[in-house]
C-alpha cells in the first residue's frame, strides 16, 4: 500500500505540473521537501536526546517499573501479545500518557523508545509485529484534551468563544480512539 501511495504522489504531482506547463516546479518541490525533512530531523535530534536521557533516569531509578506495576494490566489489555514483564510496557504507558496530557514533544521520543523495545524480540526484524501496529494506531488517534494550536489560531482570528472546539475535539478523539482500537483488533485477527 505504501509503495503505491509513494509512487502515486510523484505521478500525480508530475501530471499536475505538466497540466500547468511548469514541470520544473516538481524538481523544486522534491528538493525543498528533502530540505524540510532535514529541518524536522534537526528539531527531532535535540528533543530525542533530551527525552531519552531523562527516560534513562526514570528507568534506572526504578520509576518506570513502578508505573508498569500500577498500570500494566491496561497495557496488556490493549497489547494482548505482551509478556507480563516486557520492558516495552513502561514506554508504551509513558508514550500514551504524554499523548493524553498533550506533553508536546515528549510523546514521539517515548513512542520511538517503545518501538525499539518491541523490536528487540521481533522474530522478523523488517516486519511490523501486531503490537507495533497497535502502538501506531493509538498514536495516530490519541485522545486530545487540549488542542492548543487550534485554540491559539482561533484567538488570533478573534473567535467569539475560542475554546468551544475543545469539547468537540475531545469527543471526536475519544470516538477516534475507539475506532482505531476496533479496526486494529479486526485486522490483527484477520492477519493471523
Amino acid at each position, binding site marked *: 500500500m*505504501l509503495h503505491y*501511495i*509513494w509512487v502515486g*504522489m*510523484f505521478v500525480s*504531482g*508530475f501530471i*499536475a*505540473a505538466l497540466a500547468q506547463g511548469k514541470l520544473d*516546479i516538481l524538481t523544486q*518541490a*522534491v528538493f*525543498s*521537501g*528533502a530540505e*524540510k*525533512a*532535514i529541518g*524536522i530531523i534537526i528539531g*527531532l535530534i535535540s528533543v*530525542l*536526546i533530551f527525552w*531519552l536521557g*531523562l527516560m*534513562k*533516569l*526514570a528507568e534506572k*531509578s*526504578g*520509576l518506570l517499573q513502578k508505573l508498569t506495576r500500577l498500570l500494566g494490566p491496561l497495557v496488556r489489555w490493549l497489547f494482548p501479545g505482551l509478556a507480563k514483564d516486557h520492558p516495552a510496557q513502561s514506554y508504551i504507558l509513558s508514550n500514551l500518557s504524554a499523548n493524553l496530557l498533550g506533553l508536546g514533544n515528549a510523546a514521539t521520543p517515548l513512542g520511538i523508545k517503545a518501538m525499539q523495545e518491541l*523490536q528487540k524480540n521481533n522474530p*522478523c526484524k*523488517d516486519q*511490523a509485529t*501486531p503490537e*507495533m*501496529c497497535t502502538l501506531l*494506531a493509538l498514536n*495516530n488517534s*490519541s485522545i*486530545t484534551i*487540549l*488542542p492548543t494550536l*487550534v485554540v491559539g*489560531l482561533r484567538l488570533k*482570528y478573534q473567535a467569539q*468563544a475560542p475554546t468551544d*472546539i*475543545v469539547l*468537540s*475535539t475531545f*469527543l*471526536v*478523539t475519544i*470516538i*477516534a480512539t475507539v*475506532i*482505531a482500537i476496533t479496526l486494529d483488533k479486526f*485486522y490483527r485477527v484477520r*492477519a493471523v
Partner: protein
Amino acid sequence: MYNILAWLGTSLVPLIIVSLPLYALYKRTPVYDTFIEGAKESFPIILSIIPHLVGMMAAINVFYETGALSFYLGLLKPLLHKLPNAEHLVPILLLRPLTGTGALALLEKLYATFGPDALVSKIASTLQGSSETTFYVFTVYFGAVGIKKSMYALKVALLTDLLIFFVAILVCTWLFG
C-alpha cells in the same frame, strides 16, 4: 476551565523535567552519567529515520507544491458542489494526514473567508485538532526501528482518519449546528 487545564498542561513538563533527576538522585543513581547514557541511544535512531523521512517528505512535497491536490479537486468540483461544505472540508481531509502545516494553512483560509465561528470553520478546527499527520507518525515510528513491511498499520491509520472526518462533521453539527 480551559485556562486551568492549559496551566496544568504547561506546568507538567517543567515539573517532570525537575522531578525525574531529583528522584533519581534520591535513589542514588549516578544522575548525569545515566542521562548521557540514555541520550547516546538517540543517534542510531536518528540515522535510521533520516532516509525514511527525506523520501517521504519529498513525495508529499511534490504532491503539495505542484498543486496536484487542487488540480484533482477541480476535476471533482461538480460532484463536491452537491454536498454542503464538501468543497472546503474534503481538501482538509486529504491534506491532514500528509502535512500538518498545509492543513493548518487551509484552516486559516477558512477562518479568513467565513470567520472562525462559522460551522464549517468549527468542523475544520475539530478535524485539525483531532487527527495526526499520519504519514509523519508512520514514517518516524517505523523508520526508527527499520520496519519495511508495515502489515495493516497504514490501512488502519488511514481508515481511522477517514472515519474521524465523518465523526467530526456529525459531532460538530450536533454541538454547534
